[in-house]
């Protein structure tokens, strides 16, 4: 699954088929190499983070969740993932991130896609407000 394809998908509860909102972005933990949650858009910049554990399915057309409980409200803007520069640990630019591929079944990060090629998730060291940082090869 690609990060860009998930953004904008409706988030629907499994039991009541209630639409909670749309996907504003994904939360990730690079140290564990996983997607850890889904940010669901609300009013204004405010988003709610639903942990990966409450997801039932992340499909091509919708995200189904078991419950909206345990959602954590975030006031800060969703971090920019695509279009962000990529830097090596040595401080050299390695192009621009175009997308992030992950396993929709278990949330495992697979690779970072850039305009210069693909970088395996294991080589990604950091993701911040300025850049993706990847291991120098």
């Amino acid at each position, binding site marked *: 699954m690609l990060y860009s394809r998930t953004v904008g998908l409706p988030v629907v509860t499994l039991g009541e088929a209630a639409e909670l909102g749309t996907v504003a972005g994904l939360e990730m933990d690079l140290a564990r190499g996983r997607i850890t949650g889904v940010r669901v858009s609300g009013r204004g910049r405010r988003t709610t983070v639903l942990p990966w554990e409450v997801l039932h399915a992340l499909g091509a057309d919708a995200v189904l969740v078991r419950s909206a409980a345990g959602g954590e409200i975030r006031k800060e803007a969703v971090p920019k993932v695509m279009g962000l520069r990529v830097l090596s640990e*040595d401080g*050299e630019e390695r192009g621009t991130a175009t997308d992030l591929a992950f396993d929709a079944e278990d949330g495992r990060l697979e690779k970072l896609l850039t305009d210069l090629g693909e970088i395996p998730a294991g080589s990604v060291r950091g993701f*911040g407000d300025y850049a993706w940082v990847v291991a120098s090869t």
Partner: protein
Amino acid sequence: MSALMEAARLSGRPVVTLDGDAVAQVKDTVFDGPAGRVTGFTLSGRGLLAGPLRQSLPWTAVHALGPHAVMIRGREVLAEPAAVVARKEAARGRVLGARVLTDTGAEVGVVLDVVVESGISGRVAGFLVSARDAVVPGSRRRRRKVYLPRGETLAVSGRALVIPAAATRFTADDLAEFADQVAAYRLRDEKEVLP
């Protein structure tokens, strides 16, 4: 051999953590007394309106000096300004504008900039010098800019740097050529040490 860069070009370069956050940008590069190494950077905030930061970056905390960013482990490695500024006043002002003399007493020219190695060494590879005609064979103009390797026996005294005369045979016109010249000059140093 790591890439070479001019210290003046480092100003404004972002300081980025391995987590990808830009925490500052380089204001000035600070060298040790003999201008052999980078000892750290003074910093300013990011953005057009940002002023000087009350923090500095000692070289020991640098993860890597790269062509597009200075990488650090995290925000916590930034130190109080005194960690590098004391040395800045002692050395930085002396290097730029200093006269370069050879150990045989010839004047090479005046230091315009300091050339440092990228990566983790922090070594000064040489200087960009506004050179006098005499040391630059084949030059028609009176003065021109040349890159000059920093000899290992260099001494700094007052407003002058003293370099080995042999270093003037390894000048270059651009940084790419200079990297080769520095390597050639170091190789020559090693040969002379060996019997």
